[in-house]
């Protein structure tokens, strides 16, 4: 399936939506100081950015709809599948790497190889070896603590 979209128009609409969302969340997410403000508060820059988003968004929409200055892009969903699967792998990694760093990191590396259709087993071995080497360098040389249940049980 191929999705066609106009780059400037889509970006313009997204920017305007982002500006609206920002205006809605700034009062909740950015507190107001009680001390002297001198014209610029902690909310000024966030509101300023929302304004930039809105103005640029409108500008991009004008470019696309009025000036007809736009580029039609194609998004081939089939070609995006490996990237989407990689997102899922990375998101899953975020849930496990704190408990088991070496295994999960090696798994991400191997998943990257598998998703890019690599059939050479040596590559997988190299990635696993590199992860283990990085783990030991971090723990023993740099003294950076990385959690590992497996190596912990093995007493390494």
């Amino acid at each position, binding site marked *: 399936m191929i999705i066609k979209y106009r780059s400037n128009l889509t970006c313009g609409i997204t920017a305007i939506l982002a500006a609206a969302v920002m205006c809605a969340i700034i009062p909740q997410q950015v*507190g107001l*100081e009680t001390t002297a403000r001198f014209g610029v508060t*902690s909310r000024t820059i966030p509101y300023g*950015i929302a304004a930039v988003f809105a103005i640029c968004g409108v500008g991009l929409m004008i470019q696309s709809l009025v000036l007809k200055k736009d580029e039609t892009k194609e998004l081939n969903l089939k070609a995006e599948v490996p990237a989407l699967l*990689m997102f899922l792998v990375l998101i899953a990694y975020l849930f496990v790497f704190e408990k088991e760093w070496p295994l999960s990191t090696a798994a991400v590396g191997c998943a990257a190889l598998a998703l890019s259709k690599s059939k050479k087993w040596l590559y997988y071995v190299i990635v696993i070896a590199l992860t283990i080497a990085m783990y030991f360098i971090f723990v023993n040389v740099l003294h*950076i603590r990385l959690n590992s249940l497996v190596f912990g049980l093995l007493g390494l």
Partner: protein
Amino acid sequence: MDWAEIFSGLFTIQNLIFINIGMFIGIIFGAVPGMNGNLAITVFLPFTFQINSVSALLMLTSIYFGSMFGGSITAILIKTPGTGAATATLLDGAPLAEKGQPHRALDAALVASTFGGLVSAFALLLFAPQLGALAMRFGSPEYFILALFGLSVIASVSGKSKLKGLIAAGIGVLLGTVGIDSVSGVPRFTFGNMMLYNGLKMMACMLGFFATFRMIQRVKRGAAGKTGKTAEDLKKAAEGDKFTLTDFKNCFGTMATGSTLGAVIGAIPGTGGAIASYLTYNMAKNNPKPGEEFGKGAVRGITAPESANNGATAASLIPMLTLGIPGSAVAATLMGAFQMHGLASGPKLFEEHTIAVYTILVGCVLAQLIMFLQGKYLMPLFVKITRIPFRLLTACLLVVCFSGGYAIANRSFDVKVMVIMGIVAYFLNLLDLPTVPMVLGLILGPTAEFYLRNALSIGNGNWMIFFQRPICIAFMILLVLLLVMLSRGEKKQKQRKAEVSSPS
């Protein structure tokens, strides 16, 4: 001052060995995404207690210099800058390496880094008191204008659409606002998450924008079987893969400007090389030489930011050594190291430890030459990275980047930020939003906001404070000139393109 004693104290076998070790460590740490000179200095500081002060401090300063050059290696070879300043090097360095000329790109970076480093080291040696005094005249209004100066570069790194560049820069500035507001102390965009109170680490965001994002793209390319150029293509491109004397002559003026600018800006505490490297890149881009296309592998696009970036390195030690004010995280760590080795930084340092200090300062000059030699020897090794099979390199880089992401501050939160930013960058790329303005906004946005608010506090809310200080006025005039130059440069480039497309 006894120069003979200084030179005899410097040129000992021990010092030469430790400068070399420090430089090697620095280059390696700088080249690994996520790691940096500061981490390397912190890790190796305890080992230096066993050696004499001068050798130890020479080794630690060499780590710092080496890491700055190391940051450009990954920017050029794998589009992942090791430091914020190296993002400007990526703009032309990566395209040149992709054309099959990684050797030329790395050589250009090395020559420019050495050039900038030497200018900076001489500035430190000869003008430290004067530059220190100049730095002291910088208050919040001046810092704000200087940050604006850096932000003005957004226009020239926005790619096809300036509006999209502005949106991208806005995203960067917005990310910089996350956490406790340093002026008022109120939390911003923390969503109740305690980890966000500390803000987002610039390096974690950068690794996300560049490394994670690129790795996802590479996985996609690998799956589609698009694994790079053929051996024939590479062989053809490799014919011009040398940094020639003509290249050096073409770049000399740019490197001289970049190094000087880097040395002056570097001497101002808290500025760093990023502003200088983007400014110099901008200046070079606005004055293109015939046949030069910036953003597509122009050699001057590498030498400009690299000379400025390294021009700021030794100079950034000036406020630390002369005034006892550390201008950056690395300077603060080095200041601690000086203190631990019995050389307390500050105005009296030069009086009380004249010989030791000048031995280290002359050693900084020597370190730049050693950096050049080591860079030359290590270059073939670095270039081999481009020869690693596409899919294997992608997987290995993912592992290295996740390790580096964790090493930023020893916390898993940065890895989470890195992954999320990578996924966000992937979608932003579908909208053609450029990444570099985002990083520029992230680096300079918070600085600009902090100093703007401080300046207004000093001036009781009166904006006229920016028009009452001579340095501010001078910078504002320069800023206007720069913007005029920018628009003229763009017109020139458009004219040239039009002439090329219609040769008749």
